[in-house]
């Protein structure tokens, strides 16, 4: 009986949390948020926002959108409200976007897993006293855990060309229909990337200033969309976070591939060339491509 109850509790806990477990958690886990709550909450808010947008687009899938500008305004308003009143804990995507999680099972797992990597790298950088070999070794240890603990849901760190994001029959649909929202997402990618370099400043004082400036610059980027965010393309990690790229050369591609996959999901959902019943299969195909080191492999990393 005891075994049965324990089994039920175990399975209930699995079904309640779709997120892939990282076990044991690094000792630094979520310490970044204790030191920089405003930045951390923005990261939580965007996880929430991404899922919410995907869910909304999924609900509208295969429907004629008479007023895309109106819909964009509506989505932007919702996301801005979340950004200004962010959650203080990580929100389970399955709770707010059940259809999205159901439709994109592989991609959701890929995102969950790599978001943990993003988070724990920030945690290690934030809590390391010195920018020294010890810090580098610890980040590499976290990265190694990421690769080995759940190898079936790892996004490759092989450098891909932007064609991975833009070279498909459905590509660019999201940015064409929802340009302001797309720039909000790119601004968020920029924010995430910039935090790494902010945390690589030599002294704690400099790091505090740099993180605060990154938060401020992010708000400035999204202050008057679309004009306030002058991105022509998705920001690239090696370019925006050169210090991170120098110390951890494999990470920029891993992060960029994650970001490109986010844009791919947006395009799949926005494109009229992809019907609702195709989404699951296309999601798995694209997810596999994100994992495949040979797919859209770049000869140059970063491109010059």
């Amino acid at each position: 009986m005891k075994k049965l109850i324990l089994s039920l509790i175990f399975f209930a806990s699995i079904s309640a949390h779709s997120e892939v477990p990282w076990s044991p958690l690094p000792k630094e886990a979520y310490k970044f948020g204790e030191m920089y709550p405003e930045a951390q909450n923005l990261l939580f808010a965007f996880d929430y926002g991404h899922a919410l947008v995907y869910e909304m687009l999924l609900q509208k899938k295969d429907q004629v959108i008479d007023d895309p500008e109106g819909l964009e305004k509506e989505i932007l308003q919702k996301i801005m409200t979340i950004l200004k009143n962010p959650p203080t804990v990580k929100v389970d995507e399955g709770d707010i976007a059940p259809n999205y999680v159901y439709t994109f099972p592989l991609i959701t797992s890929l995102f969950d897993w790599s978001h943990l990597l993003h988070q724990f790298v920030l945690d290690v950088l934030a809590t390391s006293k010195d920018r020294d070999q010890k810090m580098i070794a610890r980040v590499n240890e976290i990265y190694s855990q990421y690769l080995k603990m759940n190898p079936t849901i790892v996004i490759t760190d092989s450098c891909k060309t932007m064609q991975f994001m833009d070279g498909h029959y459905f590509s660019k649909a999201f940015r064409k229909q929802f340009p302001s929202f797309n720039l909000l997402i790119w601004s968020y990618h920029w924010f995430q990337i910039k935090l790494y370099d902010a945390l690589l400043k030599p002294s704690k004082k400099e790091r505090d200033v740099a993180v605060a400036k990154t938060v401020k610059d992010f708000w400035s980027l999204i202050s008057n969309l679309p004009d306030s965010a002058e991105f022509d393309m998705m920001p690239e990690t090696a370019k925006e976070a050169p210090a991170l790229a120098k110390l951890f050369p494999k990470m920029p591609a891993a992060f960029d591939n994650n970001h490109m996959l986010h844009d791919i999901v947006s395009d799949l959902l926005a494109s009229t060339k992809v019907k609702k019943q195709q989404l699951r299969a296309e999601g798995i195909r694209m997810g596999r491509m994100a994992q495949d080191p040979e797919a859209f492999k770049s000869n140059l990393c970063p491109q010059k």
Partner: protein
Amino acid sequence: MKFIFSLVLLFGSNIFAQESVSRAKATELSVHRIERLVILKKIPETFLNHISKIVLTKESNGEIAFKSFVFLENKNVASANLEINMDDQGKTISHQVVSENVSPDAYFWPQKDSATLIEDALHFVLEGWVEHSEVKIYFDQFESIELTKFESSSDLVAHFIVTATNTQKKLHIYLKPDGTFLSHELK
């Protein structure tokens, strides 16, 4: 030790930040700017659908490092329809629409617009030189790219002619209308 790491971080950052982009990369970035301008309705959609040629020049005019001259399909007009000024990182500083004139019978590519096809061909220049050393000169000394169409065994083909300074030879790139790479040759 800490000092050395600080230096690594500092110089690492500067190396990445100050290196100028290649001419081919600057051209590709100008295509991205065209796309943004069209999407934000700041220039007409014809600049996505009917680009026939882009010419890039290197400048030494203060902040302006590159100028991208964009031509629309129009047999009667020899001057550029759009000019884009960029810094040495390929970031647009300003743009100016000179004219929106396009031939009434200008071709609509069926799967991808002309700007995206040009972008796809430029990706071959940006990446292809690593495997095909003969393409390197077009990466470093890129001058122009022109898009035309022809039919091969009733299949539609996007044909690009790329020129570079310091060489008379032209790089020909052939793509399917969906942007899939077919082949390249020098002649």
